[in-house]
């Protein structure tokens, strides 16, 4: 691996000069340039990352920074600043925000949500290793989470004792050690099976692994594993005589683990192993040709992902003080996928952000007041982002409001009972929209029909362009609002599930890199 041509200082200067000239040259809006688009990019001469030559790093890798097009405007400046500061100040900043949140939040319900957000962040981080980095679609990931939880449950309760007494009550640190190593070995074994399988076959086998886990813990020896009811009466986390008893305490423990895991994963990501994973994700055959030990890396990705997932399981079980098979269904794995995909597969910050966002949204949907803010806020944000110039935006918003008022007036003059129902949203927004949306007294079937109409309208919008799209958006938003008030907000559990599915579909279609990921281009 030859890198040496010029002293570190020369390289740094040259690199900066190259970056400067590129930013002034590329004024036009371009998507982030692919790392792999070799031919088209003007090759910057010998640009390091600004920190001098890195030993053992191939010159192509060393130059990768200069090939990135960070864009212009404040977004570009932000990205440039983001690249200039190191990783640990960012992590420290994130941790500080987390600690601050822990200090500020006093409501125990919100603390619980914060804790769940951290658990999902850890889960997304673990899934990111196999899916985001190594490109292995692991649909049985929930089994590792479940193994972690059941591992904690067995080691910290009376489950392994005779006649519901005794049992092991190990300390938390020891349990985490035992459980992560144990689940890591299981991940290793599953990874060995995965070696023979390409992409989709792997997905289906791992999906079965997830199902098998649930079946086994449900049916196997119910005196130990508790069958359908699971295991309860677990000890709280305790280390050297200190017990974690409050939700806030659990939140801090989870936050600490998120920070530690993120740091470890960052080091892993920037190591040779991390690069090799991405190489095998992008082109397994080429990676093998470059003497990368593909099989070993696949197994490693599974094992590491499993270990991280099991940590989340331990936290979950300890906080809930019980585990049951229904906590680890296939729906959970899709939820974790939604976290990862929304945040950005391949990005550590993205995985954490995705976990936090999905948990918070899920929680907000359960409260009619918060759900209203979320729903109308999202629609408004989408319109503001997507519709330019602002005159069109103003016309669009006015159109939506007037359309609704007109529709409400017409329908109420025909039949008073058709608008007799109360909107499902609570709070200020609920009373604000009650004279705007059409909600009949018994809204079930009506809401279902509207939902079907809404999906059709959304599909129509995708196909339309220009002014017609703006015209169709008006009734669509109104139908969405009516459907929301009459049906969706009343069923928060189902709405959450539909939303999670929609997150997967929409993110993949509109922004496959998620919120914080880097865009990937398929190598042909």
């Amino acid at each position, binding site marked *: 691996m030859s890198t040496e041509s010029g002293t570190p200082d020369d390289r740094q200067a040259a690199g900066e000069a190259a970056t400067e000239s590129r930013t002034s040259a590329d004024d036009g809006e371009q998507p982030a340039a692919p790392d792999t688009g070799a031919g088209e990019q003007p090759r910057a001469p010998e640009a390091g990352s600004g920190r001098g030559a890195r030993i053992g790093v191939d010159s192509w890798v060393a130059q990768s920074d200069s090939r990135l097009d960070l864009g212009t405007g404040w977004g570009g400046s932000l990205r440039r600043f983001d690249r200039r500061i190191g990783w640990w100040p960012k992590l420290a900043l994130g941790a500080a925000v987390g600690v601050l949140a822990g200090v500020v939040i006093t409501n125990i319900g919100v603390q619980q949500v914060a804790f769940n957000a951290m658990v999902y962040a850890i889960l997304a981080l673990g899934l990111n290793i196999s899916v985001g980095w190594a490109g292995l679609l692991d649909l049985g990931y929930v089994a590792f989470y479940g193994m972690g939880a059941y591992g904690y449950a067995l080691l910290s309760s009376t489950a392994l004792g005779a006649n519901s007494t005794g049992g092991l009550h190990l300390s938390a640190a020891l349990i985490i050690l035992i459980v992560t190593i144990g689940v890591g070995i299981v991940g290793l074994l599953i990874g060995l099976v995965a070696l*023979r399988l390409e992409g989709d076959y792997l997905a*289906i086998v791992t999906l079965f692994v997830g199902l098998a886990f649930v*079946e086994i813990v449900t*049916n196997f020896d119910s005196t130990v594993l508790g069958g359908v009811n699971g295991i309860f009466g677990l000890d709280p986390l305790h280390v050297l005589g200190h017990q974690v008893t409050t939700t806030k305490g659990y939140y801090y423990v989870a936050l600490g683990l998120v920070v530690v895991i993120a740091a470890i994963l960052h080091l892993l990501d920037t190591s040779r192993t991390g690069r090799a994973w991405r190489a095998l994700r992008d082109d397994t055959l080429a990676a093998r040709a470059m003497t990368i030990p593909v099989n070993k890396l696949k197994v490693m990705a599974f094992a590491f992902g499993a270990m991280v997932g099991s940590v989340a399981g331990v936290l979950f079980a300890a906080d809930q003080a019980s585990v049951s098979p229904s906590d680890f269904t296939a729906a959970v794995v*899709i939820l974790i996928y939604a976290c990862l995909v929304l945040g950005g597969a391949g990005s550590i910050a993205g995985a954490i952000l995705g976990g936090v966002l999905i948990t918070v949204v899920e929680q907000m949907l359960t409260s009619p007041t918060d759900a209203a803010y979320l729903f109308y806020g999202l629609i408004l944000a989408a319109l503001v982002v997507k519709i330019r110039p602002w005159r069109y935006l103003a016309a669009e918003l006015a159109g939506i409001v007037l359309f609704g008022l007109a529709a409400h007036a017409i329908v109420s003059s025909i039949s008073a009972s058709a608008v007799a129902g109360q909107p499902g949203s609570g709070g200020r927004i609920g009373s604000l929209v009650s004279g705007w949306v059409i909600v009949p007294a018994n809204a079930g079937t009506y809401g279902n029909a509207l939902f079907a109409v809404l999906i059709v309208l959304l*599909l129509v919008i995708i196909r339309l362009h220009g002014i017609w799209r703006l015209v169709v958006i008006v009734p669509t938003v109104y139908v969405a609002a009516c459907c929301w008030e009459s049906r969706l907000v009343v069923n928060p559990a189902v709405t959450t599930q539909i939303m999670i*599915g929609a997150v997967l579909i929409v993110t993949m279609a509109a922004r496959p890199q998620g919120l914080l990921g880097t865009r990937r281009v398929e190598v042909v």
Partner: protein
Amino acid sequence: MQEFIQTLVNGLTTGALYALIALGYTMVYGILKLLNFAHGDVYMIGAWIGYFVMLAFGGPTDISVPVVVMILVMMVVAALGCGILGVAIERFAYRPLRDAPRIAPLITALGVSFVLENTVLLFFGGFTRSYQSEDYINFSSGIHIAGVTINPVELMIFGGTALMMAGLQLLVKRTALGRSMRAVASDREAAEMLGINVDRTIAMTFLIGSAVAGVAGVMSGLAFDQITNTIGFLAGLKAFTAAVVGGIGSIPGAMIGGLIIGVCEAFSLSYISIQYSDLIVFGILIITMLVRPTGILGQRALQKV
């Protein structure tokens, strides 16, 4: 012995249904190399469509037309509804991702499956509905051999499956559409250059696969009576296993694979263990993949570089 044969008949019935679902998987996989997770849910929606057609004809007890006509209409409506659904899914969810990294459409497929399942949950609630087919079909009629009854629904499933399999085989091997399907499956870009309308071919594949799944949904409703919003998940998974065991991309393979899975499942249900029958199917899948990854009738795909 009698129990043995009865189990075999039950297994073949389930297996025929798995085979019908597996068709959709195997055709789509053959042509797009996409594991369409939403396919099991299309089957589930077919069962629901059939249920509502039955209600429209006067429910289980007060049917206004001959039962045979009603069942035919149920199947046709379910096939049409599911076909349209399948084409819409392809058009709006998968087509934009055709050139994306392989993992992207898989994740989309998961999302589509989840949305379909939960939309049905939103519409009709989580409780089970029943076709109550014993009210209008005489299950004790049919063929009796050596104390074993093959009831009319089972006969219909065997006959319908054989008919559809034969029809599809002819379609793929003998018609222009079938030729273009095979061409797109073997090399999409070359097919496009030769003037084949790739988008239309893929849409037709989804139409046919989903329509067959819709018919399978109605058949399973008549045979097993109970439908919920979640019947598609496990059935889809097993049908995919069937497609893999038979050799993915092969229509006779789907048939063989489906029957193998169905029979194995039935025997493990009655002779080994009720709880672990899914795991046994899983075991078959693992063994197939380790011993013969191409399946029984599949051909080894050369990796093009």
